[in-house]
C-alpha cells in the first residue's frame, strides 16, 4: 500500500493552509500547488484501487479509536471508484482553468483554485467517510466552497444565484442535523456501519421520518426535483469549469450519500420505490424544461438534472444490474457533461446571456471544439458508437429484467426529447450562418488538452466498454453487500 485514505483529506488541507504563505513568496504557486495536490489525489486513488482489488476493502481508523468510537474512512471498490472519478475530474477542471484565470488578479485567482481544491476534497470526504456527522461537515465544506465559486465573477447575477443556493443549503443543513439527531437519540451512535447494524431496533415511524429528513437535506445537493431550484441559476452564473465540477463532482457525492443511506443504513425496501418515483419526476420535469431553454448553459444544467434523475431511477431498481447501470451512467455523465460544459463555454464565450443562437456557424471557426461538443452531444443522447449508449442499454436491460415496462417506455420517450434539443444545437453549429462580426475566442492549449482527453475517453469507452465494466461490476457488488460493509468496519482489529 502506497498511502492511505486519510491522505485524501489531510494533504489538500495542509496544502490549503500552506498556499497563502507560499503565495507571498511565489505568486504562481497558488495555481500550481492545487494542481499538484489534485494530481497526487488522483494517483493515490488509482494505486489504492489496485490495492483494494487484491486485498479487499481498506478501513482507515482516525485518532486511533475503533469505529463505534472514532471516525473511520472506508475505501472499498465502490467508494474507490467514485473517488477516482472525482479526483480525475477535479484535475481536469484544474487543467482546463489553469490559464483561464490569467487576466484575473492575484487574490481572486488564489481563492478560485483554493476553493476548487477544497470542493473536490469535500466531495471525496463525503464519499469516504463512515460517519454521518462527519458527512455533514464535509457537505458544509462543499456547500461553502460552492457558494464562493458560484459568486466568483462579480457580474450582476452570480451573487443572486449563490444566495439562492445558500438559502436552500442552509435550510437543508438544519434538516440534516435533525435527521442525525433522531438517529442518534434512538441508537446512540453516529457510525454508519453501527447504525446499520442496530437499525432493526429503531421505531418504524422514526425510521421513516428520519429518512424523509435525510432525503430532504441531501436532495438539495443531489438536485432532486422540488429541491433543485438553485441548480440552473448556479450552472448559468458560475464560471464554465465550475458547472462541470458541480455536475461531475458535487452531485455525484450527494447521490452517493443518499445511496449509502438507502442501501446500507436503512433496512426497508419502500425506499427503493421512493427513489424510482423521485427519479422519474426529476427526469421528466428536467428534460421537458430543457427543451424550452434558449440559453446554452441553462439547457445543459437541466439536462444534467435529468441525468441525475435517471441515475436515481437506476439505483431505485435495486438489483445488482441496476446499480451497475447507475454507476456506468454516473461515470459517463461525469465525463460527458464536463466535456459539454467545457466546449460549450468556448462556443458561447464572452456572449451576454449565452443564448443557443450564439453557436450559429461555429463549426467553421472553432472546428476542434465543435467536434468535441458534437461527440459529447451524441454520447449523452446514447447514440451507438459512444459511451452513453452502453449506460442507457444497461439501465434498460436492468429495468427489463424486473419487468418494469412503463419505466422503459418513459425512458425511451424522454430520450427522444433529449435527442431533439441536443441535435438542435449541433444543427446550429454546422448548418447555420454566423451573424455577429466578433471573432470567437480560441481555446488555450491546456483547455484543449483537457477537452481532448475527455473526448478520447468518451470514444474509447464507447468502443471498448469492457475496459470499465470489471471495475463497475466489483463496485456494484460491493454496494449490494451490506453485511460485508458492516463486518469490515465493525470487526476491525487494531
Amino acid at each position: 500500500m502506497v498511502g492511505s485514505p486519510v491522505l485524501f483529506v489531510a494533504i489538500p488541507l495542509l496544502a490549503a493552509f500552506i498556499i497563502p504563505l507560499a503565495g507571498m513568496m511565489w505568486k504562481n504557486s497558488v495555481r500550481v500547488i492545487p494542481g499538484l495536490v489534485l494530481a497526487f489525489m488522483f494517483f493515490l486513488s488509482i494505486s489504492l484501487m489496485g490495492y483494494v482489488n487484491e486485498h479487499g476493502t481498506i478501513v482507515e481508523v482516525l485518532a486511533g479509536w475503533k469505529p463505534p468510537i472514532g471516525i473511520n474512512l472506508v475505501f472499498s471498490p465502490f467508494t474507490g471508484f467514485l473517488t477516482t472519478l472525482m479526483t480525475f475530474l477535479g484535475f481536469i477542471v484544474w487543467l482546463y482553468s489553469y490559464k483561464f484565470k490569467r487576466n484575473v488578479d492575484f487574490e481572486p485567482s488564489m481563492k478560485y483554485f483554493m476553493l476548487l481544491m477544497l470542493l473536490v476534497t469535500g466531495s471525496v470526504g463525503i464519499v469516504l467517510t463512515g460517519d454521518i456527522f462527519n458527512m455533514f461537515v464535509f457537505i458544509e465544506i462543499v456547500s461553502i466552497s460552492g457558494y464562493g465559486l458560484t459568486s466568483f465573477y462579480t457580474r450582476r447575477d452570480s451573487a443572486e444565484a449563490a444566495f439562492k443556493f445558500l438559502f436552500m443549503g442552509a435550510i437543508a443543513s438544519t434538516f440534516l442535523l435533525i435527521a442525525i439527531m433522531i438517529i442518534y437519540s434512538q441508537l446512540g451512535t453516529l457510525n454508519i456501519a453501527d447504525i446499520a447494524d442496530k437499525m432493526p431496533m429503531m421505531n418504524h415511524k422514526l425510521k421513516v421520518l428520519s429518512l424523509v429528513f435525510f432525503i430532504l437535506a441531501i436532495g438539495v445537493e443531489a438536485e432532486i426535483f422540488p429541491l433543485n431550484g438553485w441548480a440552473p441559476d448556479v450552472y448559468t452564473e458560475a464560471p464554465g469549469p465550475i458547472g462541470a465540477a458541480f455536475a461531475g463532482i458535487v452531485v455525484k457525492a450527494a447521490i452517493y450519500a443518499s445511496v449509502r443511506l438507502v442501501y446500507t443504513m436503512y433496512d426497508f425496501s419502500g425506499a427503493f420505490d421512493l427513489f424510482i418515483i423521485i427519479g422519474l419526476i426529476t427526469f421528466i420535469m428536467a428534460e421537458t424544461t430543457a427543451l424550452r431553454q434558449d440559453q446554452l448553459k441553462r439547457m445543459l444544467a437541466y439536462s444534467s438534472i435529468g441525468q441525475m434523475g435517471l441515475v436515481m431511477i437506476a439505483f431505485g431498481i435495486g438489483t445488482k444490474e441496476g446499480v451497475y447501470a447507475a454507476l456506468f451512467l454516473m461515470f459517463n455523465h461525469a465525463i460527458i457533461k464536463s466535456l459539454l460544459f467545457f466546449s460549450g463555454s468556448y462556443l458561447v464565450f464572452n456572449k451576454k446571456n449565452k443564448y443557443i443562437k450564439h453557436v450559429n456557424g461555429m463549426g467553421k471557426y472553432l472546428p476542434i471544439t465543435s467536434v468535441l461538443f458534437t461527440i459529447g452531444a451524441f454520447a449523452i443522447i446514447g447514440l451507438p458508437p459512444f459511451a452513453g449508449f452502453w449506460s442507457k442499454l444497461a439501465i434498460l436491460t436492468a429495468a427489463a429484467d424486473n419487468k418494469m415496462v412503463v419505466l422503459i417506455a418513459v425512458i425511451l420517450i424522454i430520450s427522444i426529447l433529449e435527442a431533439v434539443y441536443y441535435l438542435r444545437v449541433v444543427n446550429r453549429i454546422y448548418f447555420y450562418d454566423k451573424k455577429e462580426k466578433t471573432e470567437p475566442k480560441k481555446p488555450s492549449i491546456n483547455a484543449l488538452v483537457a477537452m481532448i482527453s475527455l473526448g478520447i475517453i468518451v470514444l474509447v469507452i464507447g468502443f471498448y466498454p469492457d475496459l470499465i465494466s470489471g471495475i463497475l461490476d466489483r463496485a456494484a457488488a460491493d454496494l449490494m453487500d451490506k453485511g460485508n460493509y458492516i463486518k469490515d468496519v465493525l470487526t476491525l482489529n487494531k
Partner: protein
Amino acid sequence: MEKYLNILNIAIYGSAVLLMLIGLYGALTKKSLIKIVLGLSILDSGVHLLMIAIGYLKDGTAPIFSPGNEDKMNIMVDPIPQALVLTAIVIGFGVTAVALSLVIRLYRHHNTLRIDEIKKLKW
C-alpha cells in the same frame, strides 16, 4: 417531580420547534434579504437547542471530571450532542458570514435588498 419534568419536556422541545418555525417563517415570507438571513440564524438556534435537549439527563451534571466529580459518570449528561452543537454553531457562523457578504454584494449591484425587486430571486 414527574409532572414538572413533563412540563419541561413540552416546554423545551416546544420552544425549540417554535424557534425553528419562526425562523423558517421569516426566511420564507420576508422580503428583506437581511431578514431572511436573520430567519436562517434563528432556525439554526432552534436546532441547536433541540440537539442539546436530547442529550440532557434529569439531575445530570456537566460532562467534566472536575476534582470531586470523578465518580459521577453515571449521571453525566450526554457529551456527544454538545460536541456536535459546538461544531454546528461554528459552521453556522461561517454560513451566516458568507450569506451577509452576498447580501452586501447584491446591495452594491441592485441598490436594494428587497427580493421582489431583484428579478431572479423570486421563488
